């Protein structure tokens, strides 16, 4: 068994050159080059590698909002973590859950009181009234006629119109069609109203 090169090369007085070292030093420039006679010694002292300091970790029981649990390793010393908002009660993961869609909660009745006093003019979304619906149905045909006329008018003067005006209109009308901002109803009321509509 041959000795390791490091043990051989550690002795500077030694005249012995191991065959492996000589072959290693013969580079592409050839053995005649004087630089190649210098021995490039590879040192393999044991160096102290510091172990990374890892923080102390506990096992924790995580309880999601629907009651399901799992354990994680964490630095937090409390044994149980109860999540209030997670994928189980977020509308992104539960798109069919109706109670999550309504963002307006009016348990104290403050919004209702505001509306009693100042009306519904401040609502982002118009709440369709039954009377208003009937009126709308009556006037719908007239509206359709008017819109048709308007459309033809638009087509006629589309070339000369400023395009930014229509864009501003588009932006201001956009917030009205946001399905998440249903004004004036709690989740319970919304569900009840829907039940009424179905009947």
């Amino acid at each position, binding site marked *: 068994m041959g000795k390791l090169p490091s043990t051989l090369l550690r002795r500077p007085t030694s005249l012995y050159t191991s065959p492996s070292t000589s072959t290693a030093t013969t580079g592409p420039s050839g053995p005649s080059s004087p630089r190649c006679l210098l021995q490039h010694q590879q040192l393999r002292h044991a160096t102290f590698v510091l172990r990374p300091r*890892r923080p*102390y*970790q*506990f*096992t924790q*029981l995580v309880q999601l909002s629907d009651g399901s649990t799992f*354990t994680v390793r964490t630095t937090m*010393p409390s*044994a*149980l973590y109860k999540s209030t908002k997670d994928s189980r009660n977020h509308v992104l993961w539960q798109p069919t859950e109706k109670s999550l869609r309504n963002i307006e909660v009016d348990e104290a009745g403050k919004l209702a009181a505001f509306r009693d006093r100042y009306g519904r003019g401040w609502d982002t979304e118009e709440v369709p009234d039954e009377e208003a619906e009937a009126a709308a149905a009556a006037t719908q045909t007239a509206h359709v006629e008017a819109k048709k006329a308007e459309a033809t008018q638009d087509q006629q003067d589309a070339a000369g119109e400023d395009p930014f005006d229509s864009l501003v209109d588009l932006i201001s009308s956009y917030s009205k069609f946001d399905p998440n901002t249903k004004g004036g109803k709690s989740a319970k009321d919304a569900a009840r109203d829907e039940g009424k509509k179905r009947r």
Partner: protein
Amino acid sequence: MSHPVTATETTTEETPSVTSATRYKIKSGLILTRPPLLTREPTPFEAAFYLYQKRLNERLAVPFRREFYFRTDTAADLDWRLKLRERHGVPAKDIGRYNPRGRVAWNDEVLVGSETGMTADIVESLLKDAEVRISEDGEEIVDDERVPVERPMPRRTEADEKGDARRLDRALDQTLYLVVKKGEGEAATWQFPAGDVPTQEVLHETAARVLAESAGVNMNTWVVGRVPVAHYVTEPIFAEGEDAATAPKRRGEKIFFLKGRIMAGQADLTGNKHGLTDYQWLTKDEIKRVLPWDYYRSVRNMMADR
């Protein structure tokens, strides 16, 4: 089709003989699955391995510093110290009594039959630790005034305990498969919902239609892909003295199974068009006992281990 002459020859030869369409019926079925809702329990070996890793980590990680997390002499601090004293000074709650820096730090193995490190034991000790023991005034709450932590739902549900195989909320850590019972009495067989494929339909359309016809429309289902995951062939039966060249007495069947997923809803067999009398949601092991052997053998490879 490089030799049109040979092609015409073969067709002229086959025309008098019986084609496979007259010998076999093509059917399409749907294997409706409910995916597992819970992760499985670790095996005893896995539990022991994780416990070993935790105790090893005790030796390698820096010690827990209470002062960093709790301000001294607050209620939380007193609570922590009280619980730590009861755990004999071990900060971790789930590794049992183990001192990583003592003279017996090498002794990190649990004895045979010990429950330490099992899932139930871990959950139990964590729940016990989550209980508040010190009031906001810094006084210890007596035993009968403590509010116990609400326990998580058990892994086995009510349907599991009753053995109700029609419920979908059973065997939560395994896949469930819908099987239906065809016929009455002795002649009844369990199978997956399947039906004939008409000429104008393809397999996945038939599978979806057959499922709606047999198990009702009150299910939110999804047919996974258009490629069958399994197939089952029954050979045609010929009358006495006839050979394969003639029309069979009873045609064979080639059933192609597609895979489906159920997201919501439940099967309902009332008014089904396929003569079905019962249904069950079964795990792989239970299906093995219910289905005929060769039928099960043809579909078993599409079923996951759990």
